[in-house]
């Protein structure tokens, strides 16, 4: 499995390498797709935390940090350099002086302060607020006790000082598009909602709600020579079957693939040449509610992990479009422990564990699931007969995603199956198992383990990266041992691209989110002009 990841990363690197080896061609249109639903929320990216909206936002907006897909870490985007105080709490940023907004004005420190203050407007409940809260004084603004974030200071037009409340890497906090930097003067106008202005490589040109967003090359973009294409058109195609036809029909340049199409594209000699695979930071798990009596027993939870043949499901049902999960942290996490081996498929052992726990005849539980093909009812359906073999009966409770997220937070379930983000920051990911994290946040299985808490607390306190990783690995192992969940798989995101599209990045946080300035189309594209 590990080898596979290396191969994938290598493949991604090769693609990157190839892209650099060739001289990028200027001009043409990139025809990208937004696959997650049939619309964008609106043109104010601050209001949405959805990947679907980040897909367009990347063209128009930029944030303080950006995600470096190749090195798999956050990097500075709108700042040239940063210096950190010795206690690790005060960050001083030297901002870019060549970043120009689409209406022609250069970005300065005020824009960042204005943006962050806006995001903390408590009456608006912007989803990005949770990240800004790491800055000292931000919570007071949110509660209406202060007008300004005290931990955010303008030193000069291009220098900003940020004081944090905790010792964390702010890169992991400030790279998402829901924290995009807006021009202070324009963004407060009403027209901004229909004509967004940002710092991104492309300048907004057209938006057809429910259909597409188009943007044109921003000539004054701060990265020299970029962007390459004249235009980017992002079409919303929620239906996988429709996307499949559109891609084969050469109407779009890239398409996120589901398992069924992954198989088909891999088998097709022409299509198989344009497939980009990435181990994404999503872990698919079945959460087991400890308030449901059988699941309170660790042995029962382990038995479930032994009873389901996850490898077989991944192979046959996910069509290898997933990697076997060992524990919570995903393959691409810096704290992933290669020494940890996934629970082996072993029905006999499962039976034994069940008997020890006092359930020799098994029991019945209700499994809440959505209809998602990769981590929903189809998976449950395949697992049912396997659980049946060790005496566990399953009743499926079908729900919509919205309802799933609500019952998980309220603990109104016996078991659920979900795909959860487990990265990129391993510390943040593991915090979901800290006893101080409420169920309403992300400790859905009410995990409580003093040893785990201690390891995690130490990890967040230390400034020694080695020790931090070491602690996180240990904590991850505890989660593995305690088995609050059935660890099913880590997503393998797959994107098909046309032969003329170059410069895609293997973004492990979400493959559909791309830096458009690095992409270009050669003359064989139907939209090369």
């Amino acid at each position: 499995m590990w080898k596979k990841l290396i191969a994938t990363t290598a493949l991604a690197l090769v693609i990157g390498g190839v892209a650099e080896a060739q001289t990028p061609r200027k001009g043409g249109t990139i025809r990208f797709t937004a696959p997650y639903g049939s619309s964008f929320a609106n043109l104010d990216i601050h209001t949405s935390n959805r990947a679907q909206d980040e897909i367009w936002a990347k063209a128009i907006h930029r944030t303080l940090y950006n995600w470096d897909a190749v090195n798999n870490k956050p990097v500075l985007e709108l700042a040239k350099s940063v210096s950190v105080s010795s206690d690790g709490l005060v960050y001083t940023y030297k901002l870019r002086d060549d970043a120009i907004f689409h209406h022609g004005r250069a970005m300065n420190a005020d824009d960042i302060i204005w943006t962050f203050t806006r995001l903390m407007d408590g009456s608006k409940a912007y989803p990005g607020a949770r990240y800004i809260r790491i800055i000292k004084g931000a919570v007071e603004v949110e509660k209406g006790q202060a007008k300004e974030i005290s931990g955010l200071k303008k030193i000069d037009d291009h220098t900003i000082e940020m004081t944090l409340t905790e010792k964390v890497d702010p890169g992991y906090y400030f790279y998402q598009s829901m924290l995009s930097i807006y021009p202070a003067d324009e963004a407060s106008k009403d027209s901004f909602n229909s004509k967004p202005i940002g710092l991104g490589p492309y300048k907004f040109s057209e938006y057809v709600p429910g259909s597409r967003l188009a943007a044109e090359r921003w000539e004054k973009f701060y990265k020299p020579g970029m962007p390459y294409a004249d235009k980017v058109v992002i079409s919303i195609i929620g239906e996988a079957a429709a996307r499949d036809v559109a891609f084969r029909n050469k109407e779009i340049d890239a398409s996120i693939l589901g398992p069924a199409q992954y198989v088909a594209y891999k088998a097709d000699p022409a299509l198989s040449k344009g497939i980009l695979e990435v181990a994404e930071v999503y872990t698919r798990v079945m959460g087991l509610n400890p308030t449901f009596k059988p699941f309170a027993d660790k042995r029962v939870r382990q038995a479930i992990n032994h009873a389901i043949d996850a490898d077989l499901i991944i192979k046959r049902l996910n069509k290898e479009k997933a990697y076997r999960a060992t524990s919570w942290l995903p393959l691409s996490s810096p704290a992933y422990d290669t020494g940890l081996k996934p629970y082996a498929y072993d029905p006999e052992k499962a039976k034994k564990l069940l008997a020890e726990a006092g359930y020799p005849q098994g029991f019945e539980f209700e499994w809440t699931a959505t209809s998602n093909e990769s981590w929903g009812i189809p998976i449950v359906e395949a697992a049912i007969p396997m659980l049946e073999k060790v005496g566990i009966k399953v009743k499926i409770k079908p729900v919509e995603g919205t309802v799933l997220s609500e019952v998980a937070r309220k603990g109104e379930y016996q078991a659920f199956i979900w795909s959860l983000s487990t990265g990129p920051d391993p510390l943040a990911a593991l915090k979901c198992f800290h006893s101080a994290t409420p169920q309403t946040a992300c400790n859905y299985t009410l995990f409580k383990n003093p040893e785990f808490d201690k390891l995690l607390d130490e990890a967040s306190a230390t400034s020694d990266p080695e020790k931090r990783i070491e602690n996180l690995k240990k904590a991850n192992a505890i989660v593995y041992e305690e088995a609050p969940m059935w660890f099913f798989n880590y997503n393998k995101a797959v994107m098909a691209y046309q032969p003329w599209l170059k410069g895609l990045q293997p973004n492990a946080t979400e493959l559909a989110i791309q830096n458009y300035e690095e992409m270009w189309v050669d003359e064989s594209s139907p939209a090369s002009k």
Partner: protein
Amino acid sequence: MLTFIVRRLLQTLPIIFAVAALIFVLFSVIPGTFASSMSEDGRSVLDPEIMARMNKEFGYDDPVYVRFGKYIRQLASFDLGTSFRTRQPVISVIADRLWPTAQLAFASMVFAIVIGVPLGFIAALRSDSWVDMVSMVTAVSGLSLPKFWLGLMLMYLFALVLGWLPSFGYGDGSFRYLILPAVALGVAPMALLARTTRAAVLDIMNADFVRTARAKGMSERRVVQWHLTRNALVIVLTTIGLQFGTVIGQAVVVEKLFSWPGLGSLLVDSVTLRDIPVVQGSILVIVLLFLLINTLVDVLCAVIDPRIKYS
């Protein structure tokens, strides 16, 4: 005539009010909230504090009767509220989607009428012949296909295999993009119209006044032109009006399949994301459209059929 129109419009008011109340009640008990939909993809988890703030902002914390009162007051001033998701007035969100849906519904009805009505006419005039048989079997078959399946087949055939038409989306709003979704949506009403027209024409062909017309020495063509068509038209028009509702309803499926940016896909999206003001607004607008079209049909029928005004 004007009083007739006014009366018909006034009659729709209680319906609109009833629909408004019904959808309010329905969507006040729907499980899940907009806030919970935001962490549905498991990607970025919303912290409880923001969710609480959102729920407060969107009025989830108020008792139902307070929300209902607010909702009715808003409606009375023609305000559909503010979308949770876009944070813009629902009216403007819907306005963006109205034209594509109108285009689609109109195109599919035109398809249905242009094919279905003549088909039904021919079938009736040649009743019991093979023409009749074939056209009616076609019609019933068209009624028996799941819409998304038909759409998918059309997409494969005309976009992928034949390459004649684009497979998805609104494009520049031109006719090429409209054809496939309109046909997918129009097949069922086409089939129904063919059937209704056939039945109506057959009924009228056996009517006494048509026999009178023949007894007058009229040629069959004149009988059809002078007497049959207008009488059949009333029934066909009524069917068209009622079918319009079905078409808008089914547009939900077709728009989703073809990534058509209409009211239907907005509605499905908003239901999934629990953007309740938009859901309520879209349903109200759809109902309003239906009532308007049917009032129009009634007026047309009254113009054609003098008996209607008086009953």
